[in-house]
């Protein structure tokens, strides 16, 4: 009697690691024709809409309703490559080599017009203007590489309502003494140059000096232009009611009085020269309103304009990526179907029989989906950004230059935004198990808040910013390249391209939504029957 050994397959047991699971999910993805086509469609619509936008954008300057739009002039660029406004009244002398300048400021006054062009033919250029100083009206001393627009500079100044400030190279701003300047409480300001270092000091009595800040102006020539200046940004009322927030106003003028001016070092010119540095994007104020007067040691300087980064409603790279929304709708549909199709066909039972550890199935699906979407998004962004920028440029819409790091942030951020949105779709699809409901929940959760927040005139600005902080639409902050500067008073709303959150903070909000949805999906996948 022989014992029959039970049958054992000669085949080796297959490995059931995570890599095998990934391969299984990848096979499922690539063999469904509709999903592959959907990904390609997502890629193509992003590129197509970007090109369409680029080719059909005109700059908004129209002199009369019937005249053709004019090309927008590109503003000058500052030392950091950013767009700047460089417009002020400069009372200057060359300063050869190291040296310093110190002044006592006894007053800062101003005039403003609430809208439009002021002055009348033959009359005073400031006729009709109201006395009043703007919060960021400024007067003080400045050392500037040259009088070229956008040249490097460092300045100490008194301001309308932000005390003494030291500012340099347009984007840097350090606070000095607080409080308004007046004859009863004058301010002493000093700038001293050693090599390419410029240090700013302020003082309330002319004897005890406090260092406010130090700026290294690389490439500062040995002979720089130094002297006094006054500038005053346009009057602005930020309407924050419905209508998306608008800034409107007219030109303003600031006048600073300096009753003591002392210089050290080599100042080869014997006398002061006045010059109106005028930018291209300033509210009109007749040049004759600006100027300076000298009486003994007392100098009075009047100027208009601003020395600051250019802000406001400018087009950015984000504009070339308008198709992201179309791509996002496509990848969310695919993400949802990646799971709901399994439930509809009953494939989920095979999947879970083959891999009983359900958490790993969900993880493998998420990884495959995210990787494919990221790749498609990356290709789309890399193609559409240069194409869109070029088309915008050809149509007279210059785009502010960005650093390589920011460019990478926008490209990788857009791809990651699409990938995380698709995973959010997958997770919500798993929770709801219904395609239509899941697709709507995700798209209405991402696209609708963005639409409500950025199309002006639907919601008040406060609500717009709130939407872009808490909803998944916050993720679109990765496409934002504009910086908000506290020293520039303008309308910082989603409608004008300013997100309330920093790029990666906004993206983190979207990731948090995806993580919560995935956790819920995992919980339900383990608890429910398939």
């Amino acid at each position, binding site marked *: 009697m022989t014992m029959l050994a039970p049958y054992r397959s000669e085949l080796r047991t297959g490995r059931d690691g995570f890599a095998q699971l990934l391969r299984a999910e990848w096979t499922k993805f690539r063999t469904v024709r509709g999903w592959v086509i959907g990904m390609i469609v997502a890629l193509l619509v992003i590129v197509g*809409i970007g090109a369409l936008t680029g080719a059909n954008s005109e700059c908004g300057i129209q002199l009369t309703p019937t005249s053709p739009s004019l090309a927008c002039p590109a503003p000058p660029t500052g030392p950091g490559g950013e767009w700047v406004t460089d417009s002020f009244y400069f009372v200057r002398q060359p300063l050869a080599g190291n040296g310093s300048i110190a002044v006592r400021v006894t007053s800062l006054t101003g005039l403003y017009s609430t809208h439009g062009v002021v002055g009348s033919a033959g009359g005073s250029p400031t006729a009709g203007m109201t006395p009043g100083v703007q919060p960021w009206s400024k007067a003080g001393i400045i050392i500037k590489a040259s009088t070229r627009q956008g040249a490097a500079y460092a300045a100490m100044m008194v301001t309308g309502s932000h005390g003494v400030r030291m500012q340099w190279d347009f984007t840097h701003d350090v606070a000095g003494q607080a409080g308004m300047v007046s004859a009863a409480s004058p301010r002493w300001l000093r700038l001293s140059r050693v090599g390419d270092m410029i240090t700013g000091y302020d003082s309330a009595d002319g004897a005890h000096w406090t260092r406010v800040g130090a700026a290294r102006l690389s490439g500062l020539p040995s002979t720089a232009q130094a002297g006094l200046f006054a500038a005053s940004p346009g009057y602005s009322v930020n*309407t*924050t009611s419905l209508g998306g927030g608008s800034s409107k106003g007219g030109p303003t003028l600031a006048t600073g009085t300096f009753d003591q001016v002392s210089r050290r070092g080599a100042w080869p010119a014997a006398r002061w020269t006045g010059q109106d540095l005028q930018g291209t994007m300033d509210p009109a104020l007749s040049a004759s309103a600006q100027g300076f007067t000298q009486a003994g040691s007392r100098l009075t300087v009047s100027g208009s304009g601003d020395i600051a980064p250019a802000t406001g409603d400018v087009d950015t790279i984000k504009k070339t990526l308008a198709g992201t*929304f179309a791509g996002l709708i496509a990848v969310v549909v695919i993400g949802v179907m990646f799971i709901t199709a399994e439930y509809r066909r009953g494939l989920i039972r095979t999947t879970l029989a083959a891999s009983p550890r359900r958490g790993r199935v969900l993880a493998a699906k998420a990884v495959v989906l995210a990787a494919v979407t990221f790749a498609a998004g990356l290709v789309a962004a890399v193609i559409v950004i240069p194409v869109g920028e070029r088309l915008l440029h050809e149509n007279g819409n210059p785009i502010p230059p960005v650093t390589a790091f920011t460019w990478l942030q926008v490209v990788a951020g857009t791809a990651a935004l699409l990938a995380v949105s698709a995973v959010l779709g997958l997770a919500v699809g798993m929770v709801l198990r219904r395609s*239509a409901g899941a697709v*709507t929940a995700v*798209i209405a959760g991402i696209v*609708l808040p963005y639409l*409500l927040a950025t199309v002006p005139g639907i919601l008040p600005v406060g609500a717009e910013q709130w939407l872009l902080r808490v909803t998944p639409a916050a993720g679109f902050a990765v496409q934002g390249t504009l910086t908000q500067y506290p020293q520039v008073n303008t309308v910082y709303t989603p409608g004008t391209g300013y997100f309330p959150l920093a790029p990666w903070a906004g993206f983190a909000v979207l990731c948090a939504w995806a993580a919560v949805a995935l956790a819920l999906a995992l919980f339900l996948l383990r608890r429910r029957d398939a």
Partner: protein
Amino acid sequence: MSDVVHAEWTKLRTLPGPGWLLLAAVALTAAVGAAAANAVTCPPGSICPIDPAKVSLTGIDLGQAIVAIVAVTVISGEYSTGMIRLTLTATPSRWRVLTAKGAVVGAATLVTGAVAVLASVLAGGLLLARHELTAAHGYEALSLANGTVLRAAAGSVLYLALIALLSLGVAAAVRDSAVAIGVVLALLFLFPILSSVITSPGLHRHLEQLSPMTAGLYIQATTNLRSLPLTPWQGLGVLAAWAAGAMLAGALVLRFRDA
């Protein structure tokens, strides 16, 4: 025909999904409208460009998405379960099936929309009055006795019904519910996003005139009507044309393709 409509009504009535979704549409529409009305502020002493009716009816933006789910599942649900074959066996005339579905979904949306709009207008009226944005302060009176507000309110109900028909038509044409709802939401949301970035005046205007959502929602405008590229009823007409086009496409696909 009334039998077909009755059958469709029974299908809609006896599924748990549509009832809850329509209830959610009412709640969310009213809630978003109330939140928007509550968020509106205007600095004292100034007149802001606020359209009280439009603000109160902001919730339609979200409500339409839920109405679209219901309309899409009315037909896509049948394809996913295979029920469509039974339906078409019982009623071989495919035109009649689609017409009956349209009538039932349209009627259900009209009722839901009326409740949602009424709740939005009432909530908006109460909340805007708290911010002193009333007729006494120079704003359009938010009352159904006011002809323009009545037009905005009734128009919004019609808007929702047309969105339902648009979704039904698209779903009949593409069949899969995820793809159908994706197409519907893309049609609704992409036009406003495109027209906000395309600044070329001619194309910008055409996009606004063509957009089913932007043009359709002109029906909610009660102030500054001259600045709109279309009159309110023309705008609703654009959406009606989209809905008719989608229904026709759906009917043709239903007629000439195997179920």
